[in-house]
Each structure stands twice: as structure tokens, then as C-alpha cells.
């Protein structure tokens, strides 16, 4: 009962702090809104400039091949339905393509290798299509990469489907027969895709609009960033109580120190959960974000709450006064947030080292869990980021709680 009274008191106080409300709810929604409305349009199509794409087709189809996959890919990318997104410019060789990107004449370059058709037909090993992006234009690279990936998936799926179908109906096939069958299905699939117009389609379970998808990434990142701030703020309310004398007064009542500290933690955890839920609902209503299925969403929320509350408790052990807490939390949470990839959530071509570094921060793991949730990943795929996010929170608590008890419990001069 006292535990609930302590938590309720903290919730009341926090709900009356204008600054906290702005930081916890206003800032993430505002930052996401700025981006969303910059890219959103009444039609639901993205309002972004057409990306110029240098296309270098080095593909040399095998003799007698019924298709030229390189040319088909170029045709797909040049389809009228993509004209508002991509303008394909033919460039004779890889060096010229790279030079165009380097000079900024194009947003990205795509280099199709000589064995591309052979790879599609399954008569050669895997082949690599190179996408060269201008690092200063991450959005262009993201758009092109998305479209190309879908085109390549179409080829791969067609070839695989054909091989399987024929194997089941006719038994093991000779290499030549298999190649012909794959060619036929891949061509059909490619033609039908081209006829229908290659569309930007959202992955299952995520938002249909481009702006909403982008907003979801930003909103997820901002939510994590500010939830961690609220967690630290909640923990530092102990410092405020110590300075205001109310903590000492609490200890003059017949209330155990563990109840006082437990009530604080509960109040912070409930605040964080409420903040997350309000942000999820508000962003779904305002930006049309579909956050994924309920169970993964619930687990991602819980993991985020545990991590943010735990990290806050740990940070608290490094500050002496509430005046120190503001700047210290600001610096630590901004740095760990940046390293965790929260400021670059929409960037798709970050160096691998950056991705690795993000895994050394709780925010990085939390972002991975929310990305998986947004992508509609199943629980198995989400298990690792969820478990690591929650485990970091628990580890912070294991280290931080004894320090907190020693410092804020009785006999400590409070």
C-alpha cells in the first residue's frame, strides 16, 4: 500500500512538471513531426526529389540465354511508375559511374556485374550488384537500395520457384533444363512485375506510407532517447527529495527504506511505461505509424522500460547533487544515444563499425528491438535484442541499487 502511495505521489508530481511533460512527450513528437510533415504529401506519396541513378550494365548473358537480366533490371528501374522516384542514366563503365557519384551528378550508382544473368539463371555462382551511394545523400541511397533490392528479390524468387516446381513435377533436372525453366519463370515474373509497375511496398506489419515509415524510424529513436532521459530524471528525483528534506522525513515515518526506494522505482517504471504508451498511441494517430503486433510491442516496451529505469539508477550513483545531474545526464545520454544510432535511425548506409559500436549501448539494443518490431519480425528474431536490452537494464540495477541503498538509506546523513 505504501509502495503504491509513494509511486502515485511521484506520478502526480511528474504529471505537474511542465518541463518534464515537454521533454517526455512534446519533444519526441515535435522532432518526428518536423520530419514527417516535410516528407508527407496529401496523396501519401513521398515528396522527395527524384534520385538520379547512374546505371552501368556490364552483364554478359551466356550464349543462347533467353533473357538479359541486366537489361531487364534497367527496364524495371526505368518504369514509368518509378519516374517520380528514380531517373536512370546509363553510364558505360564502373569508373565512370563512381566518378559521377563523386562529382555529385548522381545520387547513387548501380553496377551490374558480367555474370548477372548467369547468376539469375542459376548456371553460375552468386553474383554481386554494387550500389555506390553518395554518403552526403543517405536518403537517395536508401530509396534506390530499396527499389533495387525488390527487383533482385523478384529475380531470385522467380528462379527458385521455377526450379522447385519442375523438380517436384519431373524429378531431378539436367542443368540445361533447369536453366531454361528458371529463365522462363523469372522472365514471366519480371514481366508481370514490370507491367504492374514496381511499387514501393512496406514490409508486412509496417506503415503503408513512406513518410510514416520514415517517421516510425525517427519516432522509435526519439522515443528511446527521451524515455532514457525520463528514466534518469526519475532516478534523480531521489536527489531532489534528499535536498528538499522529504526523504529524511520519510525515514522518520514507520516506512522501510526498501519500500521508499521500491516506491521510487515503481513510480519511475510506471512513468516510463505511460510515456511509451502515450507516444506510441499519439504517433500512430498523428503519423499513421503501425508499430507492429501487440505481443512484440508489449515486450519491446517492457524491455525499454527496464533498460531506461536501470540505466537511470546506475547514472544516479555518479552524481552528488541534483544540479550536477542535469548536465551529467545530458552529456551521457546524448553520447550513448548517438553511439546507439538514435540520431541516425534513417541512415541506411552507415559503416559497419557504427553498427558494432551501437551494440555497446543500451539504446543501440533497444533500437534494434524496436526496428525488429516495426519490421514485423517474429518473436524468435526479436529475442536477442529484447533479451539484451532487458539484461542491460537488470545489470544496471544489480550494480546501481546497492549503491543507491547505501547512499539514500538510513544513517547516511539524510
Amino acid at each position: 500500500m505504501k509502495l503504491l502511495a509513494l509511486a502515485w505521489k511521484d506520478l502526480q508530481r511528474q504529471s505537474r512538471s511542465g518541463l518534464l511533460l515537454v521533454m517526455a512527450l512534446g519533444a519526441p513528437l515535435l522532432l518526428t513531426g518536423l520530419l514527417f510533415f516535410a516528407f508527407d504529401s496529401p496523396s501519401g506519396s513521398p515528396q522527395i526529389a527524384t534520385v538520379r541513378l547512374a546505371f552501368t550494365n556490364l552483364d554478359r548473358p551466356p550464349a543462347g540465354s533467353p533473357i538479359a537480366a541486366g537489361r531487364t533490371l534497367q527496364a524495371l528501374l526505368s518504369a514509368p511508375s518509378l519516374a517520380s522516384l528514380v531517373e536512370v542514366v546509363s553510364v558505360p563503365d564502373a569508373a565512370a559511374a563512381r566518378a559521377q557519384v563523386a562529382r555529385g551528378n548522381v545520387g547513387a550508382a548501380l553496377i551490374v556485374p558480367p555474370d548477372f544473368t548467369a547468376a539469375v539463371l542459376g548456371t553460375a555462382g552468386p553474383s554481386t550488384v554494387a550500389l555506390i551511394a553518395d554518403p552526403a545523400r543517405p536518403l537517395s541511397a536508401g530509396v534506390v537500395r530499396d527499389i533495387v533490392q525488390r527487383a533482385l528479390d523478384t529475380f531470385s524468387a522467380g528462379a527458385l520457384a521455377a526450379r522447385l516446381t519442375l523438380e517436384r513435377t519431373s524429378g531431378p533436372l539436367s542443368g540445361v533444363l533447369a536453366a531454361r525453366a528458371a529463365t522462363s519463370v523469372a522472365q514471366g515474373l519480371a514481366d508481370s512485375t514490370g507491367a504492374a509497375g514496381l511499387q514501393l511496398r512496406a514490409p508486412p506489419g509496417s506503415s503503408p506510407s513512406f513518410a510514416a515509415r520514415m517517421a516510425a524510424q525517427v519516432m522509435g529513436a526519439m522515443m528511446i532517447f527521451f524515455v532514457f532521459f525520463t528514466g534518469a530524471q526519475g532516478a534523480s528525483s531521489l536527489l531532489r527529495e534528499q535536498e528538499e528534506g522529504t526523504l529524511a522525513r520519510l525515514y522518520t515515518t514507520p516506512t522501510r527504506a526498501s519500500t521508499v526506494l521500491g516506491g521510487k522505482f515503481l513510480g519511475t517504471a510506471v512513468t516510463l511505461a505511460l510515456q511509451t504508451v502515450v507516444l506510441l498511441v499519439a504517433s500512430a494517430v498523428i503519423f499513421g505509424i503501425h508499430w507492429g503486433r501487440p505481443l512484440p510491442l508489449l515486450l519491446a516496451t517492457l524491455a525499454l522500460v527496464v533498460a531506461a529505469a536501470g540505466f537511470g539508477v546506475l547514472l544516479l550513483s555518479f552524481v552528488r547533487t541534483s544540479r550536477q545531474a542535469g548536465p551529467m545526464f545530458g552529456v551521457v545520454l546524448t553520447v550513448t544515444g548517438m553511439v546507439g544510432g538514435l540520431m541516425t535511425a534513417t541512415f541506411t548506409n552507415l559503416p559497419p563499425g557504427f553498427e558494432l559500436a551501437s551494440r555497446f549501448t543500451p539504446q543501440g539494443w533497444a533500437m534494434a528491438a524496436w526496428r525488429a518490431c516495426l519490421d514485423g519480425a517474429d518473436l524468435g528474431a526479436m529475442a536477442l535484442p529484447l533479451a539484451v536490452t532487458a539484461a542491460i537494464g537488470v545489470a544496471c540495477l544489480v550494480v546501481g541499487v546497492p549503491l543507491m541503498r547505501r547512499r539514500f538509506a538510513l544513517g547516511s546523513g539524510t
Partner: protein
Amino acid sequence: MTHAVEVVGLSKRFGDTIAVDGVDLAVAEGELFSLLGPNGAGKTTLMGMLAGLLEPDGGRALIGGQRAGSSAARALLGVVPQEVALYPDLSAHENLAFWGRMYGLRGDDLRRRCDTLLQVVGLEGRRRDRVGTFSGGMKRRLNIAAALLHRPSVVMLDEPTVGIDPQSRRAILDYVLRLNREGATVFYTTHYMEEAQELSDRIAILDRGRIIALGTHDELVRIVGERDVIDLILGDASAGDAVAAFRDLPGIDSDGSPDQNGRLRLLADDGETALPLLFQRAAEAGVSIRSVAVTEPNLESVFLQLTGRALRD
């Protein structure tokens, strides 16, 4: 017999500083007991140990026979801290309701106690207003109310009138007296001599962590004797003749010779009747008196006598 508060050999040190040094005292149930001492005497440290906020380095403290700091002792206590310890962003009623819950109250009982105490401290009309908007005196009154919700048998008030206006101070003192009349044992710390004198059944004078005197007001005053003190400042030429001139006046004695500033201290059985005689004899002897001050014996003079320092030094 179980005392409301019992302290035996209690001591506490912070680094090299001895804050409380082997204090012994016992407060009877229903007594209004004051701990008087200058700032830094150790009053708040002693109170902190009684409230269970500080672990003593030596000795023991009992509240109603329970070890100070234990849950049972804390349930008997209502502690009013020196600084206002309330939540400024909660209303007066929300504050009281919260502190009541911390003392285990709930439901109708809690509601009734909150309403009663808001009325008693005159804040009924401001029950929904946030405490942050209150004046210093209003906060102090609510600060006291928050310690009384659970009808404690021992109420400890740590300098509750510091820095407030005379009207609020009067209201607080009246309320402390009322509490005591209603049966609560009151343990009151102050550095205001007048408060201790007005309120207390017994007074302990604390200095540098030690109790230097303990008793009723009259008992303490007897330490300096029951005679009034008359301080004269004499004209330059008169200092030498004054002692001889005043020597055989009835009921008046000198405690020495004038100092270099011409200050002469006399002790009189009754200052009021001594003054006319004094001026008459001075006129006859040609002794010039530049100023005169009569002081009845009080706690200030007791403290001065025992420590050589003024209470407010």
C-alpha cells in the same frame, strides 16, 4: 516507569567534531520539554538520533521504551523537521494524505484526519492549492500538521518558528501548547530563550554537544541567583567614588569595581525599588550615571553564567 523519551550516554561525532557528547536525559509522558541551545550546539543531531535518522556512535535512545529508529518507535513519533519538508507541487490536502498513508492511515480515518488538521492549522480554505504557492508561515503550519496525522504520543519539533512572521509564530506556539494539553509529550528544540521559557515544563540547555543545565525554568534561574542585575555606566570622574557611595544601600550589592569603560554591575533584591535609592545616593555623592539597565534573571543570564557567552553568539 517508562519515559516518553529516554537518552543514556548518547554521543555522535562527525569526523573530528563531537556533535553530541554523552547526553543523558529523560522526558516524562505528557511533559513539554525544551532543548535550548545556540546554533551548532547539537540540537538537530540529537533530534536526528531520536528520530532514527542518525546512528549514534555511543549510548542509547528510547522512545516510549522502543529503540529509537525502530519501526515501533517511529510509529509513536511525529517529527516536525527544521526545514519545511513538503512537496511544493502537491496541494495541502494531497500532502497531508500522502504523509498520512506513510503513517499507515487510509480510508475514512485518513480523510477525517486531513480535514481536521487542515482546519486546526487554518488552511481549510487553501486545501486544493499547491504548497509552493503558500507563504512561509502557512508552510510551517502545514509542516507541523503533517507530523500529527497519526495522533503521535511523542511530538518532536525542531526549531519550528525559525524565520517566520510573529503572527504565525504565535499560532505555532499556541498549537504546541494545545497539543501538550491534549496529552502529547512534546520535545521542542529552540534557540529562542523566550519560547523555551513560555512553553516548557522543563528545559535542558545544550552547549557544544553537552547538557550544561537541566530543570524547570525557576530551577535554572536559581543557578544565577534570584536577584536582579543592575548595569550602570558611570561618568568618567565618578567611577572611583561609586562603589563607596552605593556600599551601604539596603538590598543592593556590588559584584566588583567599575571596569575601564565605567561599567559597574550591582545585584539587587528588587530592581524596581532599588533604582530610586540608587539615583538619590548618586546625587548626594556627586556620582554621575550615564545609563542604567535592569535585568531580571532569565535563561540568557544562566547561559551567560555557565558558558561565558551569550545564547545568540
